[in-house]
């Protein structure tokens, strides 16, 4: 890892760590994201472990078990929460280990004698209550977070790949290429992409990848300006001239010299891109142009919440979750910006 051994990078890392708030936020965010990628083990209607007649079963993974496997007279999948209660009552040494939240994100839990949304309750183990279809809010929050995070990270990769490539070429080649793409980008970034998504959504139901492609299609322009400027700046410096004097090829100059030196520009914008990715997806879901119906999503939950203001746990939990995550991301962004602030440290010492 040459990039991390670099003393400049190390100093920045030190300064990033010194910003306690940002450093802790980065860890929290990392832990939350990692946990959400194991969401099946946190919130699931299938148990982590079933011990039946001395044999262990892992219903979370692998093929679906029918009720017959566990001595029930049904061919379909048993309700493991009820199975857990039955095993406990029978007391024959069989047991079921449920995840902390024993509900899946798509499962409707309709409690007899009550209309959904159900209020938060420890006895029903709906810790944040259920939504209007009886689905567990906490489970949907976790799965929704995973979707949003995954979406914004993949979107970031796409936007950066296209934006950096084109921005770098604009800065390095300059001239007519630069001028042409400047105009293209000016036009492109003025296309109201929300309308495009509405139009597309009216024709097909956009899935995860369709949405991603549409957003990347219009989102790459933002990075190009920064990359273009950074490339222009670096390309005019003497070390690039020295590399040219040595006979280095264009690609060598770009990849070995210019890009590593402009990486600071890229990194500073990562947290803000993630935040805007999450917000954009939530907004689309809220408006109903986002991911298709049963997909757990924050925007959809927010919409339910605003429509059912008397069930405050709906809007409350999603607003708190959203605020928390965006705040963490913003703190990380702030710490990165501080770490890269040239006023505190310069190449010239």
């Amino acid at each position, binding site marked *: 890892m040459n990039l991390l051994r670099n003393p400049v990078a190390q100093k920045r890392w030190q300064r990033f760590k010194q910003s306690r708030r940002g450093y802790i936020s980065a860890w929290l965010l990392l832990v939350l994201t990692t946990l959400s990628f194991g969401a099946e083990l946190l919130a699931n209607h299938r148990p982590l472990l079933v011990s039946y007649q001395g044999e262990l079963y892992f219903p979370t993974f692998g093929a679906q078990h029918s009720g017959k496997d566990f001595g029930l007279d049904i061919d379909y999948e048993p309700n493991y929460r009820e199975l857990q209660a039955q095993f406990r009552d029978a007391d024959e040494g069989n047991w079921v280990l449920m995840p902390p939240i024993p509900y899946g994100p798509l499962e409707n839990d309709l409690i007899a004698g009550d209309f959904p949304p159900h209020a938060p309750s420890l006895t029903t183990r709906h810790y944040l209550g259920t939504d209007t279809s009886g689905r567990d809010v906490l489970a949907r929050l976790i799965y929704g977070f995973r979707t949003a995070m995954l979406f914004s990270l993949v979107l970031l990769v796409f936007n950066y790949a296209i934006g950096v490539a084109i921005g770098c070429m604009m800065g390095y080649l300059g001239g007519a290429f630069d001028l042409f793409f400047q105009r293209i980008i000016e036009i492109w970034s003025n296309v109201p992409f929300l309308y495009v998504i509405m139009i597309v959504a009216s024709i097909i139901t956009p899935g995860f990848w369709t949405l991603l492609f549409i957003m990347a299609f219009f989102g790459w322009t933002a990075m190009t300006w920064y990359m273009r400027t950074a490339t222009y700046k670096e390309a005019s410096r*003497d070390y690039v001239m*020295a590399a040219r*004097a*040595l*006979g280095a*090829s264009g690609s060598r100059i770009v990849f070995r010299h210019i890009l590593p030196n402009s990486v600071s520009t890229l990194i500073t914008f990562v947290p803000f891109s993630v935040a805007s990715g999450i917000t954009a997806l939530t907004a689309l879901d809220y408006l109903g142009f986002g991911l298709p119906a049963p997909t757990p999503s924050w925007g959809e939950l927010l919409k339910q919440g605003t429509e059912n203001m008397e069930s405050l746990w709906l809007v409350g939990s999603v607003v708190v979750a959203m605020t928390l995550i965006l705040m963490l991301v913003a703190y990380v962004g702030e710490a990165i910006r501080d770490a890269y602030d040239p006023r505190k440290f310069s190449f010239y010492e």
Partner: protein
Amino acid sequence: MTDALLRAENLSLHFPQSQGFLKPKLLLRAVDGVSFALQQGETLGLVGESGCGKSSLGKALLNLHHPTSGTVAFEGRDITGLSAAQMRPLRRDMQMVFQDPFESLNSRHTVATILEEPLIIHRLGGSSWRRRRVNELLELVGLPASALGKYPHEFSGGQRQRIGIARAIALEPKLLICDEAVSALDVSVQAQILNLLLDIQQRLSLAMLFISHDISVVKHMSDRIAVMYLGELVEIGDARSLCERPAHPYTRALLSAVPQLASPTLPQAALSGDMPSPMAMPEGCRFAGRCPHQRAECLTQPPRLEKRHDGREIACHFWREIPDDLP
């Protein structure tokens, strides 16, 4: 005279300066019709005030800036207009040491990476050979082997310039262009670097174009000296005789500006005024406005380089009349 290593013929480098949309572009004449030849193993000093086009000339010679007109021939082969790929094999033979050692080294690369890069670009040797070669280079420029893993910012200016020199000679070039190679350094360090360059030049028998604004430094280094003013050469000649008996009024002014410890041999012929803008050149002799010997003809007729009996070339209408023996 086809035996010259490097020959510039009427070389010009103009930069169009945009004034804004639809306005006429101004032409910055950084280098304007320069001709000279550099022999194998010879050191030519190039002096002139800052902004006179010395560095641009150096970069144009290496095709780092594409010359507007004129030709540069390296070992008899015209290299103007060659593409970067066509230039690559030639780059082995012509290298450059840059002015600012802070800027000319990539701060993200270690010394080992910096010195290995020319060898990698020209696909020389295997990795173990390259490592040996890098060590050799370090030794040649007087840096310890412990420098290999360090980054440029951990070195002083003089040490950094040594790294720059090591990189430039890594390919064993025939021509080294030193573009103000010592002007960013302390005087005490300057001497070390100059001696290092002289030492390396003798060992590798390379030809050197030594660009500097400091005529005393150039005098120390060069076999011949070329004096540049506003994009043109005004005088070229043997280093010692040029410094002792300068013929062009501008060369005299440059020499008289050198502080002397012993009895001042040159009269104080300090120049008045500034260099004219290279975007609005005077019509006649470019130096006329500041020349103490200015006459009417100077304002209308541009002088050409004329060869004197001893090989000195002077661009002045009245060099015969201006006494070249200093009072």
